[in-house]
C-alpha cells in the first residue's frame, strides 16, 4: 500500500527536511506539504530540496485544510507547524492563533476524514515547565510542578490537550505525540541557537541549568519512523546525556555575563521590546532550572537510539558555525607548553 502523507510547517527547516526524506521514500506515493508561506528558495535562502513534495499554500487557521485532506486521500498527517517564537510581524497573538487554532482546524479536518490512519504531532519538552520543585528527570507521565502559563510552552500544552481529545474520539487512528528537546544542528534557527551565536552570553547569576539537545538529523529520523509505522503514545525525544549551560559556554569558547535574575528578566523584556531577540519568561526559567527528560520509552518503542548525544549535537552546531572552543583552551595549552616543555 502506498501512503499519501501531509506535512504541515513545511516551509521551516525541520518540516522541509522531513518532507524531503519522506518524498525520497519509494513506499510513499505522494507527499503534500502545506504552510502559510512558500518554502524559501533553494539558492538564495538556503532552503532544503523538497524532492517531489507538492506544496500547497494553506493558512492552517482556515478550514481550507479540510479540502486538502479530502481531495488527496491523505492517510498520514505529520503536524510540524508549531512556531516557537512570535513572527516579526504579528506578535504573540498571531503565534498563538497559528499554533492552537491551526492545530484545532487540522485535527477537526482529520476527525472528519475517512482516510486518515496516522497522526504525528510535534510537541516540546517545554510542556514540563521548569521549576525547583520538579524531579531532575521527566518521564512522559510526569505532571509538571508548575504547568507552563506563557508562550510556546502553553501553546504546546494546549495543542497536546486537543490531540488527546482527538485520540479519544478517533480510537482507530494511531496518534503519536513527540516531545522534542531543543533542536540543535547546523541548519537550526531557534531562540537557543541565536542565543549561542552571540559573542557575550547573559546568564542568570547563581544558576547553571542542565540542558538537553536533539540533533536535527535525529529529529528528522524520529519523525520519519513515526510517520511510517504506528507508535501510538507520547514520547520524549532528546540526545543522551546533558550539558550544563556553563559547559556549553566553555565548549563554545564564549564569555558569559552573569546577571541577577530580576535584571535578567528586565533586560529580556527590553530586548524583546526592541525586537532584537525573543526572551520569554519560559526561557528565563529554563535558564535558571534547566530541564532533562527520560527517553527510554522512545528507544524501546522504536528499537533505535538517537545517533547524536546532547554534547555531540552541540559540537556539530559549534563546528558548523566555526566556533570550536578556541582562545581560553589555547592559552592553557600555550602555558602548559611553556612550563613543562
Amino acid at each position, binding site marked *: 500500500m502506498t501512503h499519501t502523507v501531509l506535512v504541515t510547517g513545511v516551509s521551516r527547516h525541520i518540516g522541509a527536511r522531513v518532507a524531503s526524506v519522506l518524498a525520497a521514500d519509494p513506499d510513499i506515493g505522494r507527499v503534500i506539504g502545506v504552510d502559510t508561506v512558500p518554502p524559501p528558495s533553494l539558492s538564495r535562502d538556503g532552503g532544503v530540496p523538497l524532492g517531489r513534495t507538492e506544496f500547497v499554500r494553506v493558512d492552517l487557521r482556515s478550514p481550507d485544510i479540510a479540502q486538502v485532506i479530502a481531495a488527496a486521500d491523505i492517510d498520514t498527517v505529520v503536524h510540524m507547524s508549531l512556531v516557537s517564537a512570535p513572527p516579526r510581524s504579528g506578535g504573540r497573538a498571531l503565534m498563538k492563533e497559528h499554533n492552537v487554532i491551526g492545530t484545532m482546524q487540522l485535527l477537526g479536518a482529520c476527525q472528519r476524514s475517512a482516510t486518515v490512519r496516522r497522526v504525528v504531532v510535534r510537541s516540546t519538552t517545554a510542556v514540563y515547565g521548569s521549576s*525547583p*520543585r*520538579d*524531579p*531532575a*528527570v521527566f*518521564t512522559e507521565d*510526569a505532571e509538571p510542578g508548575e504547568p507552563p502559563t506563557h508562550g510556546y510552552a502553553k501553546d504546546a500544552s494546549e495543542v497536546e490537550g486537543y490531540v488527546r481529545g482527538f485520540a479519544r474520539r478517533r480510537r482507530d487512528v494511531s496518534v503519536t505525540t513527540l516531545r522534542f528537546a531543543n533542536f540543535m544542528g547546523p541548519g537550526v534557527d531557534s531562540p537557543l541557537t541565536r542565543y549561542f551565536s552571540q559573542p557575550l552570553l547573559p546568564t*542568570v*547569576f*547563581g*544558576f*547553571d541549568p*542542565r540542558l538537553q539537545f536533539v540533533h536535527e538529523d535525529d529529529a528528522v529520523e524520529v519523525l520519519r519512523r513515526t510517520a511510517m509505522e504506528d507508535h501510538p503514545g507520547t514520547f520524549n525525544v532528546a540526545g*543522551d*546525556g*546533558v*550539558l*550544563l549551560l*556553563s*559547559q*556549553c*559556554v*566553555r*565548549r563554545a569558547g564564549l564569555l558569559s555575563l552573569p546577571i*541577577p*535574575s530580576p535584571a535578567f528578566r528586565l533586560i529580556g523584556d527590553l530586548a524583546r521590546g526592541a525586537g532584537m531577540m525573543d526572551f520569554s519568561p519560559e526561557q528565563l526559567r529554563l535558564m535558571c*532550572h*534547566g530541564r*532533562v527528560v*527520560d*527517553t*527510554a520509552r522512545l528507544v524501546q518503542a522504536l528499537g533505535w537510539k538517537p545517533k547524536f*548525544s546532547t554534547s555531540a549535537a552541540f559540537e556539530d552546531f559549534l563546528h558548523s558555525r566555526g566556533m570550536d*572552543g578556541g582562545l*581560553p*583552551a589555547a592559552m*592553557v*595549552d600555550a*602555558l*602548559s607548553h611553556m*612550563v*613543562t*616543555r
Partner: protein
Amino acid sequence: MASAHEESRNGFHGGSHDAQVIPIDRGRSSRGAGGFADFDGALDPEDDRRLAELLAFVRRRIAGEYEVDEFGFDAELTDKVLLEIMRPLYRHWFRAETVDVENVPGESGALVVANHSGTIPLDALMLQVALHDDHPDRRALRLLGADLVYQLPLLGHLARKTGHTLACREDADRLLRKGELVGVFPEGFKGVGKPFSERYKLQRFGRGGFVASAIRAGVPIVPCAIVGAEEIYPKIGDLRFLARALGLPYLPITPLFPWFGLLGLVPLPSKWLIGFGEPIRTDEYDPSDADDPMLVFNLTDQVREVIQQQLNELRLRRGHAFPPFL
C-alpha cells in the same frame, strides 16, 4: 542513559585516585615552585607529573570537556575541588572517624538514613566526605535535599554539581535503580534546626517516603548515626520574626552568632564519630508492598529506633564533645 552513567562513575573513580595523589593545594603550590624550579633548570620528575596533571585538569575545566550526569553531578569538580575544601574540616577540625563503614555496600544501590543536626547542615557534607574517603570503594553519596535549596542562587546548582538532588519519589527511585548510594535525612529541618537542649533526640521521621523508595528498588537501608554535629553551632535561641521575614525555616542564636558576626559562623571543633549500622534488607518484600502504609510505618519506626540506639552508643563511646579540653 546507562552508558553515560557508567562513564561518569568510571570518571569518578579515576578522579578519586588522582585526588589522593595530588590534593589541589599541593598541586597549586607545585605550580608556583615548579615554575621557578623550571627556570632554574631543576625540576623533580614527580613535580613535573603533578604539574602536567594540574594543567590537564585546568584545561578540561576551561574547555568544558568533562561529564556531568543527568542530575547535574560533576564528579571531577566534587572530588578535586569541593571535597578537597571539606577534607581539612573533616580530618583536622572535627577529627572525624567512621565506625563500621563496611556496612555500606561497595557496588550496589543502598539507602543511607542518618540523623540530621547542627543548625547548618555540615553533617551532610561530612557524611559525603566520610563515604568517599573512608569507604574502601570510595562511594559517591547522592543526597536528597529540600526544595528550598534549589530555589536559591549558587546553593542550588552547587548542590546539583556535588551530586545532590531534590527529595522526591522520582529522583530517589531513579538513583536507586541506577545502583547509586543515596543519602537521606528524614528529620529534615526539624532535625537540623532543633535547639541544643534536644540534642541527640531523633525528631519525627517525615512520611516514610524513603522506606517506600527502598522497598520499590529492593535495596538495603543502612542506618547511620552522626555524633558531633550537634555541638558545632549550639542553637540556644531562634530569631523567628526575622527568619519568617527572610523566608528561612529558622535563624539561630548560638553562643557565637550573631554576637561575633562572621566569626560566629566558625563551627565549634567538636569530635565527630560517624557510625553505620547493619543494613536492613528490603528485598524480601514485593515492590508493591511500598503501597502498604502499615508496613512502611513499621519499617520507618524500626529504622528510627536503630538510629537512636546507635546514637546513644556512639555518644557514650565518644565521651566528651571537645577533647582534650572538655
